[in-house]
């Protein structure tokens, strides 16, 4: 197995070398137009891809067969995971997720190679693209996923000398010098938060999206290399739309994951990890809009190149933010400090691709065609231009907010993240503009704009949107002005796009993608407003069996069910409007470290979600009461009188301590019950593993059990008479007293019309799909034209 690992790391180096060679030969082929170089280049690229697939297969094999002698396998997986989850541990850590990213990048490259070869773009494009792949592979060369565990923990695992009998998992490293190592028989396992089916699907989609974001960048650089500033737009558009669709789907799935299982309370928390995939997405969408302008007018040449470059540069910047450890602990996601190598490599990668893209841009900018665009405020082009810029402003503000820990640590010396309010305040006005433009722009496109007909076309959408805004205001209540304006604009965009989409569909169904995508966005925006601005929330204490009324719902905590040794489902009956349903939010108590992980549960009504997230459970009956017992002072506890006499540390135990063996220190209590009294010793156990307190039970004369648990020893050096001990005492259960039931504390919230968000997402993806079909078709025809002319 160790041999397989060695093979794996060698193959990764082969892949890296092959990718670099592909860069070289592709560039030669571009410069010299040499078929020979092109032949070598393609083979090198294929070799890189093939090697990477092999390395990834070896890696997956090691995971599936539980080879815990590899640090990564030990770190993220364990033998008790289900097969899909076990597979998903492939990308649970940094090395694996970079492998996945590189793998998808290499796959997409194969398609890109075929696609560009038919459009006379292969050499230039693939030389840049192979360089991107090389950098990803370099990351794997530096952060080797096949690292052996005894190389990671030499001090703990590597030993010299005779191997004791009966040891399992022993590997002899050097037979001559007698060096050997033992490796674990079980892995640490996957973070419980990640253990659900979202982990299987979400990262995959996100990484396909990330990988495809490299294509518009590559094509823009290739265009500058070839000094072709127009036809590349048509070549690049289908890829940009594909990338936006996949990344957009990945982002929203992540949101759904956070909402449904992670219990963040909403679908978007403006967390760095979420933001970092949103920024490239916004820029890619901006580039699609701006590209439409160039196709129509021939202008916006430089704008489009810059947008395409930024799309990938922000992917790298995001990766740097979330993977290098710079955000520290200002986020809910935990970022493991990956070490200086990765930090500088990520920074270097960012610098290289900014340098190539914008360096070439600076060289070529003077010769780029300037096409004077006829400006008219009432033109689709102007709306597209404003739309693209507003989108990039959203991206800019999100990027600034996400970079806050870096900015503040430079400016103030202490990293701090911005509050969520920052994102809402900056993006709400921009969202209003975007919605307005996406409605206006579509109407302008459809009615070839003369002022009169345009005004007439506005009548219906404006009236209907006012009605919708009125309904939102009437049904859900008042809100601030900007929110109502946002609602109005989103409704306007929805109706305008439905109207236009219907007319387009009647003309040529193939062209309807854009309208449908905008309808999706508008529906999502309406969903954002209703579900997160008109939501209601309450924190409730539910005593078992006793119905509690809140927000028009009657909630009854029925009791809990043990799912396994750590996870408990808490059943709550929800009664509303004659319908009774049950939710079962889950809490996972980890006994080892006392941590709690909470999973919400949701009842999905058509018009709203009822969202229940567990907070804590308070046991009703036996509660321990803390007492501090000072030496010699009797304290009444229940029917008992308890006095702390002294600490005892016998010579025998002192000797054990000196030898490094387990030893005990005790606190001696005198327990009086009526006239009789008895000694009770509370022990503190000390060993190499640490110290803990041993609980003790006192049985009274009538058979009642008192539980004593020491929590702290407080010996006083200066005045031994002031020595004290802290004790938790659980009183015996008394059937005569009314037993208070368990109380479940929950946070319940109602999210009106949240289904709009999901419905909008699906609509958006359908719109993207239709657009891809149309643009691919168009690009194919252009490709045919080029081939015909050759």
């Amino acid at each position, binding site marked *: 197995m160790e041999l397989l690992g060695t093979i794996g790391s060698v193959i990764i180096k082969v892949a890296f070398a092959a990718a670099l060679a592909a860069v070289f030969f592709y560039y030669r082929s571009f410069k010299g137009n040499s078929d020979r170089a092109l032949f070598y280049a393609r083979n090198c690229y294929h070799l890189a891809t093939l090697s990477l697939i092999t390395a990834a297969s070896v890696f997956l094999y090691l995971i599936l067969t539980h080879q815990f002698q590899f640090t990564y396998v030990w770190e993220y997986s364990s033998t008790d995971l289900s097969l899909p989850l076990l597979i998903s541990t492939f990308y649970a850590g940094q090395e694996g997720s970079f492998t996945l990213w590189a793998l998808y990048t290499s796959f997409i490259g194969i398609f890109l190679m075929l696609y560009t070869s038919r459009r006379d773009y292969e050499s230039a494009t693939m030389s840049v693209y192979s360089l991107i792949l090389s950098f990803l592979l370099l990351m794997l060369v530096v952060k080797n996923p096949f690292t052996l565990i005894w190389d990671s923990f030499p001090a703990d695992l590597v030993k010299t000398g005779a191997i004791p009998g009966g040891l399992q998992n022993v590997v002899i490293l050097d037979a001559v010098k007698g060096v050997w190592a033992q490796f674990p028989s079980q892995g640490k396992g996957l973070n419980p938060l990640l253990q659900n089916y979202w982990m299987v699907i979400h990262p995959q989609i996100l990484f396909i999206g990330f990988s495809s974001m490299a294509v518009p960048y590559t094509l823009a650089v290739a265009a500058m290399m070839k000094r072709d500033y127009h036809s590349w737009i048509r070549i690049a558009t289908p890829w940009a739309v594909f990338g936006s669709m996949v990344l957009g789907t990945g982002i929203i799935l992540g949101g759904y994951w956070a909402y449904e299982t992670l219990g963040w309370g909403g679908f978007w928390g403006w967390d760095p990890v979420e933001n970092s995939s949103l920024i490239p997405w916004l820029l890619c969408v901006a580039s699609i809009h701006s590209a439409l302008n160039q196709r129509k007018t021939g202008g916006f040449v430089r704008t489009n190149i810059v947008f395409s470059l930024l799309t990938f540069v922000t992917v790298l910047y995001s990766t740097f933010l979330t993977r290098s450890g710079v955000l520290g602990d200002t986020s809910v996601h935990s970022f*493991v400090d990956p070490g200086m190598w990765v930090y500088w490599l990520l920074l270097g990668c960012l610098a290289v691709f900014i340098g190539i893209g914008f360096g070439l841009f600076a060289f070529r900018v003077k010769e780029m065609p300037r096409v004077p665009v006829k400006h008219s405020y009432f033109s689709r082009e102007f709306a597209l231009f404003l739309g693209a810029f507003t989108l990039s402003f959203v991206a800019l503000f999100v990027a600034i907010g996400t970079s806050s820990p870096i900015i503040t640590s430079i400016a*103030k010396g202490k990293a701090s993240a911005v509050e969520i309010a920052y994102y809402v305040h900056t993006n709400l006005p921009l969202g209003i503009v975007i919605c307005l433009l996406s409605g206006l722009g579509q109407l302008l496109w459809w009615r070839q704009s003369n002022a009169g007909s345009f005004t007439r076309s506005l009548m219906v959408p404006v009236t209907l949107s006012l009605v919708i805004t009125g309904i939102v205001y009437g049904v859900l209540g008042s809100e601030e002005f900007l929110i109502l304006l946002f609602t109005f604009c989103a409704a306007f965009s929805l109706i305008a796009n439905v109207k236009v989409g219907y007319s387009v569909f009647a003309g040529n169904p193939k062209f309807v993608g854009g309208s449908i995508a905008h309808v999706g966005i508008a529906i999502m925006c309406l969903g954002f407003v209703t579900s997160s601005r008109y939501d209601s929330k309450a924190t409730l204490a539910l005593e078992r069996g006793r119905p509690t009324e809140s927000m028009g719902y009657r909630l009854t905590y029925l009791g809990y069910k043990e799912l396994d040794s750590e996870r408990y489902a808490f059943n709550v009956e929800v009664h509303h409007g004659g319908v009774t349903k049950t939710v079962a939010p889950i809490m996972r108590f980890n006994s080892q470290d006392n941590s709690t992980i909470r999973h919400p549960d949701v009842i999905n009504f058509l018009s709203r979600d009822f969202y229940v997230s567990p907070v804590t459970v308070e046991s009703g009956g036996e509660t321990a009461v803390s007492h501090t017992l000072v030496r010699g002072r009797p304290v009444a506890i229940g029917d008992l009188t308890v006095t702390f006499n002294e600490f005892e540390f016998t010579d025998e135990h002192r000797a054990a301590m000196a030898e490094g063996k387990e030893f005990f220190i005790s606190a001696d209590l005198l327990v009086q019950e009526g006239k009789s009294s008895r000694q009770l010793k509370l022990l503190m156990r000390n060993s190499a593993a640490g110290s803990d307190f041993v609980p003790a039970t006192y049985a009274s004369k009538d058979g009642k059990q008192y539980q004593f648990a020491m929590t702290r020893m407080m010996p006083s050096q200066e005045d031994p008479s002031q020595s004290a001990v802290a004790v938790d005492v659980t009183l015996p259960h008394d059937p005569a007293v009314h037993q208070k039931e368990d109380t479940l504390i929950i946070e319940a919230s109602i999210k009106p019309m949240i289904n709009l968000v999901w419905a909008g997402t699906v609509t958006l993806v359908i719109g993207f799909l239709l657009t891809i079909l149309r643009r691919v078709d168009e690009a194919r025809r252009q490709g045919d034209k080029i081939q015909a002319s050759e």
Partner: protein
Amino acid sequence: MKAKVIVGAIVVVIGLVLGAMNFMESNVEYADFSVAEQSHKKVQVKGEWMKEEATNFDVQKVKFSFFMKDESNRVVKVVLDGAKPNNFELASSVVAKGKFTNGEFHASEVLTKCPSKYEGSSETVKKTL
């Protein structure tokens, strides 16, 4: 054309200025309890949970309170709106965001900084042998 560029530039500059102001406002500054007490502003205080002092969870009001020692060693009672934060027992240090009122620190949020369990450590590697 010129006029448009100027109007555009003004809009962009105004946007950036508003954005920058927003950024400054929503960045909650670090402070210790004594500074927080005087400023009455929302701040974040870093410190550690006093494990030996009592913690309390008010079921009815849903407030969790504990004692926290800030970096200048002043101990103050912190009242959090909500339940005990995730991983509270594990935390090597905590950051409380909120305001100082009436001798108590009222936190809207308490972040816990954990020595992550899911990081490689030589202690765990020994345990899984």
